[in-house]
């Protein structure tokens, strides 16, 4: 298996006295689905931003064996916590086609690929509607389609179930599993992580404190309570 994400001794802090990430190291292999879990404020989203090169700091990040740079980012699909940060065009189809057109793909092909990505997440009937007219659950799935449309080799999801009801979260989990793409996600949702991830990493206070299969890591309620996950 090839490593897709390699993180070594990653540190980051907005304030030197109180680092948010403290010596994080882990690896995600091709085909894996890994969930970084932790309570609010554990540093999950900061870790993703650092991985994407949006924050700088000590430590090493390699994606597909290379340092983070625009050509490497083009191989990723990223779904941010708030779909409104990603989708702004007058229709979902236009939103999805835009990065393809921007990469020089013809409009007809971009449109066909946008339709296909919407079909994968079950939103093909909403192709002509704007993201703002959809429910939050649908917007999240649309954001996943927007990330998938460029056929990424790695899908990154930041708190995908935030503000979703149980049914929408289940639909989203089914969608992510069905895609079959190497996935790294952050969440504090145990049910979602159990459905989606083959491996979970527990991040507490900027430090990885545990790692393993969900069934194994979630088996001791007292530990989950100590980590702030229940």
């Amino acid at each position, binding site marked *: 298996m090839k490593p897709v994400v390699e993180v070594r001794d990653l540190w980051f802090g907005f304030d030197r006295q109180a680092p948010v990430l403290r010596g994080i190291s882990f690896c995600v292999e091709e085909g894996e689905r890994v969930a970084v879990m932790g309570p609010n404020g554990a540093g999950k989203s900061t870790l993703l*931003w650092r991985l*994407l090169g*949006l924050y700088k700091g000590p430590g090493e990040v390699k994606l597909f064996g290379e340092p983070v740079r*625009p050509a490497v*980012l*083009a191989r*990723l699909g*990223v779904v*941010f*916590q*708030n779909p*409104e*940060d*990603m989708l*702004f*065009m*007058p229709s979902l189809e*236009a939103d999805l086609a*835009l*990065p393809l*057109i*921007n*990469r*020089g793909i013809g*409009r007809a092909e971009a449109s066909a690929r946008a339709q296909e990505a919407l079909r994968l997440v079950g939103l093909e009937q909403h192709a002509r509607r704007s993201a*703002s007219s959809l429910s939050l659950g649908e917007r999240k799935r649309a954001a996943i389609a*927007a990330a998938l449309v460029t056929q990424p080799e790695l899908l990154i999801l930041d708190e995908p179930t935030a503000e979703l009801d149980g049914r929408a979260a289940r639909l989203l989990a089914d969608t992510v599993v069905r895609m079959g793409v190497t996935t790294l996600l952050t969440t504090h949702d145990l049910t979602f992580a159990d459905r989606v991830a083959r491996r979970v990493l527990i991040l507490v206070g900027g430090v990885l404190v545990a790692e393993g299969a969900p069934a194994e890591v979630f088996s001791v309620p007292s530990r989950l309570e100590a980590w702030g996950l229940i």
Partner: protein
Amino acid sequence: MRGAAAIVLLIGAGAAAWVREESWAAGLAAVGVAAHLITAPDWRRGLPALVPALLFAAALAALGQFGGAGGLLPALKTVAVFAFVVAAARLAPVEPWLGRAGPGSRWFRGALFLLMVRHFAAIFGQETWRMLVAHRLAAPRRWRREWFDSLAWAMAALLRRALLRAERFYAAQRVRGLGE
């Protein structure tokens, strides 16, 4: 017609960025705000989108005063440029422009920029509206000292929130390859 009006408004934004006199900047800011409110679906919905820009301008003016630079020119220019560009983004037939322009061309990038501005103004409006509703619920008795105090804190929180949303929106578009 709408396209021509949008281009005139963009010229107004360019002029506001270029002027060196406070009086001219103030005049252009007034015209820009009027254009902003006229082009909004209704002015009460247009006003909230302007609030974060006004707060940012106020912060700029305050920093200028504390820093000894003085003058309201940067703040007035900020308001004028923001108001003109948002008004232009509302009027511009951006979708047909995007459809006709070659990918990567200046016209394509310009149309994309206007679309992003329009979307971001809507986000500003929503954030302001939420904050004002929360403030109204938290401090229902108006025109008292506590009401003004809490409003000031709410506005400071709104400015922080607007900056955070701007950072996230930029990051999302950058990762999608559209932000450069």
